[in-house]
Structure formats: C-alpha cells, structure tokens
C-alpha cells in the first residue's frame, strides 16, 4: 500500500508534470505554471479518490500551496506519512 504522502506526491507529479523530488510545501500556482484552474480541479478529484474524503468548498478555497493541502488532510485526520 502506498502511503498518503506517496499518493499525494504521485498525483501532483502526474498532473503538474513535475518530478516528485521537486515537490515541496511551497509549490503553488504562482511558481508552477501547470497549476492552472483545470489542473486544480483534477487535483481535487484525484485527491478525493485517493483519500476517500469529500472536501468542502471552504477547504478548497483555503489551498494556496502544497503545504495547505497537507493541512487539509490533517484536518480530516488523514495521515500522509505512514
């Protein structure tokens, strides 16, 4: 089984087309041109599928970078590191 962190990094890498090693908490739409509105939607859909959680709109609005995504996973008590 992949850990949530691996799943998250895997989907970010696939959708944003960046290498897993380059992903850090500071990755955001500002420094990553592939993080456009359409890819953001796909990230949500993939993350919901991987985690089994349905995020609400406020969660989505609060995301400004990868670090924020981890905070939301924390909020739903999803451990992203096993």
């Amino acid at each position, binding site marked *: 089984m992949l850990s949530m962190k691996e799943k998250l990094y895997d*989907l970010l890498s*696939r*959708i944003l087309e960046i290498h897993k090693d380059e992903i850090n908490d500071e990755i955001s739409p500002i420094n990553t041109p592939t993080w456009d*509105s*359409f890819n953001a*939607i*796909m*990230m*949500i*859909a*993939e993350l*919901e*599928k991987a985690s089994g959680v349905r*995020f*609400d*709109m406020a969660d*989505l609005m609060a995301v400004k970078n990868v670090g924020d995504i981890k905070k939301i996973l924390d909020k739903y008590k999803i451990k992203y590191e096993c």
Partner: protein
Amino acid sequence: MNALKEKIISQSDTMASCILLSKEIDKISKKIDKKVAVLSNFTVKGLSECLRVKSFINDIFLQVYEGEYGQWKQEILGNRLYEFKPDIIFLLVDAHGLDNNIIYGDDGTNHDEIEKSKKEAKNELSQLIDYIKRKTNAKIVVSNSVKIWPPIAGIFDSKLKNGYYGIVDDYNNNLLKAYKNDGQVFIFNFNEWLGYIGKKNFWCGKYYFVADMRLSPEAIPLLAEELTSYLIPLAGKKKKCIVLDLDNTLWGGVIGEDGLSGIKLSPTGDGQQFYYFQKLLLSLNKKGVLLAINSKNNEADVKEVFLKHPHMVLKENNIVSSKINWNNKAENIQAIVQELNIGLDSLLFVDDDLSNRELIKQTLPEVSVLDLPTDSTKYVQTLLDYKGFNTFEFTEEDKKRNEMYLQEKQRNEYKNSFIDIDTFLRGLDLRVSIKEVDDFLAPRIAQLTQKTNQFNLTTNRYQEDDIENFIKSGNILWALDVSDKFGDYGTTGFCLVKDVPDGWEVDSILLSCRVLGKKVEEQFFGFILNELKKLKPKKVRAYYKPTLKNNQVKDFYKTFDFCKVKSSETEDIWERDLSDYRFNKHDFIKIDKC
C-alpha cells in the same frame, strides 16, 4: 498496443489518468479512424481525452474537436466545426442552461413567461440542429435535459399547470418526437444516464460553484464510456456473436454434478438471476445478435437441459453453433468462427470462470471478453452496460440473421452426409436470380461493397449515391439473389461492368461469403459474360487487386480462360476476347433472369 489497452482498462477511471493515457496513445499511433466534435452548454473539459482513451479500448482511434467554452451556438453557426469535417457531433445541451425559468417553474404569477421560455428553448435548439444538418452529413447526437430532484415546488409540482417536471418532460418529449424518423439525429437520454450514475453526486455539486462544472469531473470518464455506444457502430466495430459458457453462466450450478433438477434456473426465487440473464440474451438474439455455446460438458447432459428444463428461456434454435466438449475454449472459439465464417473481432466471450477468460484474453486478443462479476445477480446489468451491440439501424437482415445462420447449419449437416460436392449441390435445389440494379437496390449494393472482403476482386467501396450515379451514367450493374431448399440468402452478389471503347471493363465483382462454395460465382459471372457477348462480342478486361483477405480469388478469371496480361504488386490485369466465349451452365442451378 495490447499492453496499453490493458493499462487503459485498469487505469482510465479518472480524468487525470485519461489525459496522461491519451498522450500515450499519441506516442504509439497517429491513426485517425473517426473525427468527433463535442459542443456543450456546460463544461466538459477533459471529455476529449477521455473519449479517445475509452474508444481505444474498442480499437477506435479518434481525433476530437472540443468547442470553445460557452460558445456552442457560435461554433454551430461558424465555420471551424465544418472545416474539421466531423463524422459525428455530440451536442450536450441542458435546458437549464437555455433558460432559467425552466428550473424555477411556475410560481403562480409567471405563466406567460414560462410558455414563452418553453417555446424559445425548443425552437432555438431545433433551428440549430437543422442548421448543422444543412452543413454536414455527420451523425448528430443531442442530449436531452436533466431533471433534478426534488422540484422546488415539492409535492405540489405535479399539480401546477407548468410544474418543473412537466416543463422538462415536454421539452424532452418534443426533442424525441422531432427526430424519431431522422436517421442523422439521435437523442441521447442524458437524464436517465445521469440518474443511473447518480445525480446527487455528479450534477451541480461543489464543482459547479468552484469551476462552473455542472457535470462533476469524476463523471466525465463515465460519460465518455457511455458515448462509445455511438462510436462503436460508427466505426464498424459492432459485435455479431456472443459465445456463452453454460455452468454458472446460463444457469447456477454444474449440470454434470447437480443434474437437471439441481441446477438453479427459475422465474422466481433462487435462480431468477439466470432466468433474466437468458431473457436478455434472447432479446439480443431477436435483434440480430448470434449466440454460440462454448462449454466443457457432456453434450447429452446439455441437450437434456435445453429439451427438458421447464425454465430454459433459450432454445436450441437460438444457438447457431455449439461446441460442447473437453477441448480448451480457445480451440473451440476458433472452430466457431470458422463454422460461422465471421471474424474473431466480432465475438464477445461470456464466461464466469476467470481462468477461461484469461486464456482467451491471452491467446485470442481480438476477441472481446465480458468480465462477469462473481455475483451472478449482477450479470444482467453487466451485459446491459456492454456497448458493443449498439446499432444506428435495425434492418430486415438483422431480423432474419438468426434464421439464416440456422439454415446454414442445416446445410452443413446435410453437406456432411454426401461424399461428392456435385451430388450435394444437386440436392440443394439452388436457384439464382440475376437482375439489373435499380435505385431501390442501391442501399443493399453499397452495403455489400462496404462489407465484402473475401470474394471481392477489386474491393472498391461505394456509397449509395455512387451506385445511383453508375446507374445513371449507363454502366451495367447486375445483382445476384440466391436461394435453396433451406431458405433465401437475399441479395448476395454484385458485378459492375463499364462500357469502354475497345470492349468491356469489369470494375467490381463480389459475392457475400454466405453463398460461397456452391459454384454460383461461376454461374453468375458466366451468365454476365454471355450477356456482354450478346451486346458486343469484344474484349473484356478485368482486375484483381490483392488485399489481406481476398487471396482465394486471385485466379478467379483463369476459370473463364482469361489471360493475365500484366501483373504487379497492386494489381493483376486479365483479358479475354468474347467472340469465342461459351457459357457452361450447371444443370443443378436454375437461373431466373428478371
């Protein structure tokens, strides 16, 4: 290619993975089988990639044109759509997007406004569809409108003069009625489909407010899969025959162990799921899908079930080929396609046993395999969800198909009882009727030129209007009808001869594989040569253009004493002078000239 197909089958469930997989398809092939345009009044971004990926599973390569966001009307009225030359246009239009009055319905004060909105929504859409029809012959698939639950007026909606459901139902019914008899326009019941996958989860949820996506992105791969129902018949990838296992597929249990009274098959209680699965198979059979059996069993046990079990829905006369033995199932499938003279790629294999399914997937990758779930109560829905039997038309041929194949089976049994072929043919009471092609026959002739591969000397493919043009410009077009004591084969042969200055030129001659092996091809062409001689006893030039499938006819003209005057990789040219031609008529074939 098969590796990518496997990968797609297991991974194409999200939009993000479809987008990546679509890029992988680009890497392995630049092929385009069909061009698809998608126009919508709600966001379906990503549908293009999903369509390409889901079609690839069915061996169809697509190029997709996605209309600009929010501009479906401009797209229809502009030129870009038509410059793309689509083969099919998906018009996904939801009435809520056409007018807001529709969703809020009657509040007691706005009756006139609603009447006006209803009319406008209907007129606008039909005008746009008619405009597309004037610009292209592409198939047009129009979605109906979604009805959401619950209506704003609640339980009183059914009492309102213009209740919400009343309005949307009217809109949907009008759409259905307007195009009922139009072969170009098909109505996609988007509302029912969305209900099936789940409106509560997939329609106007969070994504609508975040990104203006009425249809949730999770539903887009599912929509693409559903729309392959139109792409499969469009690309000619329809399946013709279901190859069925028996134990735990057509009935519960194992006949060899449980016995006639022990197997589960009943219209009530235990065994119901198998009874209704057979009902579904029977209904497909009536629509022209052939059924064959491939089972490891003792033939006598199975015969007993077919003859004596009170609840067997399928009867022996629904089955065109039976392989009941202890051979491996791949060998049996080979035997079935040979017997029925159809391609491996026109089969669907249905078996509850995973190892048998794997065997077929590995050894005969052209065969489609239905992944039956372990739970037999899900068989019916699994087969219903399979898209490969969809069709744009239901022809006389489809209605008669089962009967025709059964007749062929009887013929073969009859044939096996003879030692020499002429005695067999003599006993068949063969009758051929040769007639000139008229406009009435043109659709069937065009279909024959499209479908015939084996006995086809030049494989020239023609459309209906090509045939009509040949008739108009004074060429000689003959059609062949064949029947025997077991039944009628219908129009199964065609020959097109052109009048050229130094004699005649045979443009096409073909026979459907159903009538091969009866020497009617010799009679058909012999008769034609004789007629040509009467008209003008000069030289006949004929061609053989080799393809992967027509090797059996490469020396056809030799039989008629033609000389090969030129031979190259792409064609052989044969010639013969008609002045000394004599027609050898077989005494066992009767020729009616109409």
